[in-house]
C-alpha cells in the first residue's frame, strides 16, 4: 500500500463515520421526544433524577442496564414494586434485602416522592423490550402497583414470602406460584398453612412463618382473594 492510500483511508474513514454518527444524533434527538415521553418529563421527575444521582443509587443498581451490577436493575422496578413498594425498600432496606445489603440512605419523604415519579417515568421509556426478565410483568404492570398498597401485599413482601413464591411471575422458585392460590385454597386452609405448613401437608418443607395472629389473618384474606 502506498503512503497516499494510507492517508486516504484515514481521512475518508473518519469523515464517513463522523458524518453518519452526527446525522443520526440529530435524528435521535428528534425521535427521543416520543420514545421517552418528554411530555411527561415534569419538574418532579427531574427532581427525582437529582435524588437518584445525589444518593449514587447507580453505583449499585443498573438503570437502562448501565451502572453497577451489584443490585437489581431499576428500569422497570416500578412495574415490580409499585410506588409504595419502592418507598418501603428505600425506607427500611433491612426488611427486604437478603444476604446482600442495601444501605439506609435517609431520604426525606419529599425526596422519596420525587424518586418514585422519576422511576415511574423511566418505566415508560421505550427500551425495545429490554430487560428480558421484566417483560412478563408488562401485562401485570398495573396490578403490581395495586399490590404495593394493600396491607396484605405489603406483609407478603415484608415477611419474605417473595423469596420462595411468585406473584404475577415475580419472586423465588422454591414454592408454588400464588397468583391464583385463592381459587384452589380457602381462607381457612391458607390460615392453617400459615400457622403450621405441616398441618395441611405432612411432607411440607415450607418453614413456619413468624406471624402474629392479625398478620396471619391479613395475609390469609389477601391470598384467598388472589383468584
Amino acid at each position: 500500500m502506498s503512503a497516499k492510500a494510507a492517508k486516504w483511508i484515514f481521512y475518508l474513514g473518519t469523515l464517513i463515520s463522523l458524518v453518519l454518527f452526527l446525522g443520526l444524533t440529530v435524528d435521535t434527538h428528534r425521535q427521543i421526544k416520543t420514545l421517552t415521553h418528554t411530555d411527561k418529563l415534569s419538574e418532579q421527575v427531574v427532581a427525582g433524577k437529582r435524588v437518584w444521582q445525589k444518593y449514587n443509587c447507580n453505583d449499585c443498581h443498573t438503570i437502562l442496564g448501565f451502572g453497577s451490577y451489584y443490585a437489581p436493575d431499576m428500569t422497570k422496578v416500578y412495574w415490580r414494586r409499585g410506588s409504595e413498594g419502592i418507598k418501603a425498600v428505600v425506607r427500611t432496606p433491612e426488611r427486604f434485602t437478603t444476604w446482600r445489603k442495601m444501605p439506609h440512605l435517609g431520604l426525606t419523604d419529599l425526596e422519596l416522592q420525587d424518586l418514585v415519579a422519576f422511576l415511574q417515568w423511566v418505566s415508560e421509556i421505550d427500551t425495545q423490550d429490554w430487560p428480558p426478565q421484566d417483560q412478563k410483568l408488562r401485562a401485570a404492570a398495573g396490578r403490581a402497583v395495586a399490590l404495593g398498597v394493600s396491607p396484605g401485599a405489603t406483609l407478603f413482601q415484608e415477611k419474605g414470602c417473595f423469596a420462595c413464591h411468585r406473584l404475577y411471575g415475580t419472586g423465588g422458585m422454591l414454592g408454588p406460584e400464588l397468583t391464583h392460590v385463592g381459587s384452589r385454597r380457602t381462607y381457612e386452609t391458607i390460615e392453617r398453612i400459615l400457622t403450621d405448613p405441616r398441618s395441611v401437608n405432612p411432607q411440607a418443607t415450607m418453614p413456619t412463618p413468624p406471624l402474629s395472629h392479625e398478620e396471619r389473618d391479613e395475609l390469609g384474606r389477601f391470598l384467598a382473594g388472589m383468584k
Partner: protein
Amino acid sequence: MVLAYPSQRVAYPYFVVALFLFILQVIVGIWLASSYAFTMPQGLVDILPFSTTRAIHTNLLVLWLLLGFMGSTYFMVPEETERDLFSPTLAYVQLALLVGTGVAALTGFVFGWTKGRPLLEIPHPLDYLVVGGALIFLLNIGMTMLRARRWTVTQGSLLGGLVFLAVMYLFNLPFYANLSIDWYYWWWVIHLWVEGAWELVAAALTAWILMKITGVPRETVEKWLYVELGLFLFTGIAGTGHHYYWLGAPKYWLWVGGFFSALEPVPIILMLVDAWHYIQNRRGQLNGRLVFTFATGMAILHLVGAGFWGFAHTLPPINYYTHGSQVTVAHGHIAFFGAYVLLNLMFFYYAMPKLKGLASYDERRGTLAFWWLSLAMLGMTLAFSVAGVLQTYVERVMGLGYMTAQAQMRFWFTILAVLGLTLLAGVVLTVVDLLTLRPAPPAKASA
C-alpha cells in the same frame, strides 16, 4: 548519560504516583469482589457502601492510567520533537493539581459528595479542575511541538488523541434532565475514550516504542499508523451505537451499532500483525527482551479483551441478554488490562531504566511480573465470565429474578476474590521491580 533531554525527567513522578494508585485500585477491587461473595453486616454497609468503593476503584483506575499516559507523553515528546519541554515547571504544577483534585474527589466520595454518574462521579467544581489540568497539559505539549516545528505522524496522532480525549470530557459537565439523553452523552465520554481517543494515544505510543526498539524505518511504521487510525475512527465513532440499543433511542441503532462495532476488532488485529512484523524484522542489537514481551503481550491481550470479549456481546440479539451483566464486567476488566494497563507498563519498562541512568537492567523479576499479572487477570476474566453466563441464563433467559441468579454466582465471586489477591501480589512485584531496577548481572560466558 542515557536521557536524551533533561526535561524528560518530569515523567518520573508521574510514573511513581501512577504505580502507587494502581496498588490502591487493586486493593479496593478485592474489597468489591468480597462484597459480592460474602454478606457484609448492615452497619458497615451503612457507613461504607459498595457504591462508594466502586467509585473509588474505577476513578483510581482512570486517574492512574491518565497520569501514566501524561508521563509517557512528557517522556516521548522531547525525543520526538528533538527539543526540551516548553515548561517542566508547568508539568509539575499540573501533576500537583491533578493529584490534589484526585485526593479531594476520593475523600469526597467517602462522605457522599458525588455527581452520582457511574465512572464519572467527580462532582462540580472538581471536574472543572480536571479540565484545568488537561488544559495545562495540552498547552505544554502543544507549545513544545509548535516551537520545535518538526511534525511527525506519530506526534500528530498523539496530540490528536489527547485533544480528542479532553474535548469528549466536556460532555460530562452538563446536567441532563432526560435519563436517556444523559446516557447517550455518557457514552460520548466513555466509549469515545476507550474505543476512540485512547486508541489513538495507544497507537502513537506503541508505534514510537516499536520504532525505538526494532529500528524499523519510520516511513513503514507511520504509513500503517495512518491505516490503523483510520480504521479505529471509522469503526469506533459510529460503533458507539452498540450502547444505544436499549436506552430509548430509535431502532436503527441496532443496525448501525451492530455493523460498525462488529468491525472494531479489525484495527486491533492490524495492530497485532504490525507489532509482530516489526519485531520479526528488527534491526541491530538489542538490550534485553522485556519491552518486547510487554509489547507482544499487550497486542495479544488487547485483541483478546477488546476484540474477542467485545465482539462476543456486541451484536444486538446477544446483547439483549447480556447487557448490564457480569459479562460486561468480564470484558471491562480484560479490555482495560490488555489495552491500557499493559501499554502503561510497557512504557514504564522502556522509560524507567533511562530515567535511572541504566543502560541495561536485570529483567528476571519484570518477566515474572508480566506473566503473573497476565495469568491472574485471565483467571479473573474467566471467573467474571462464568458468573456472567450464569446470570444471563438464570436471570434473563429463565427469568428467575436477580437475587436467585446471584445466589448461583456466589461461588465464582469467592474464586474471584482469591484471584484478585493473586493479582495484587503481581502488582506489588511489578511496582517494587520498577522502583528498584538493578543493573543486569554480568553476562555468562556463553551469552
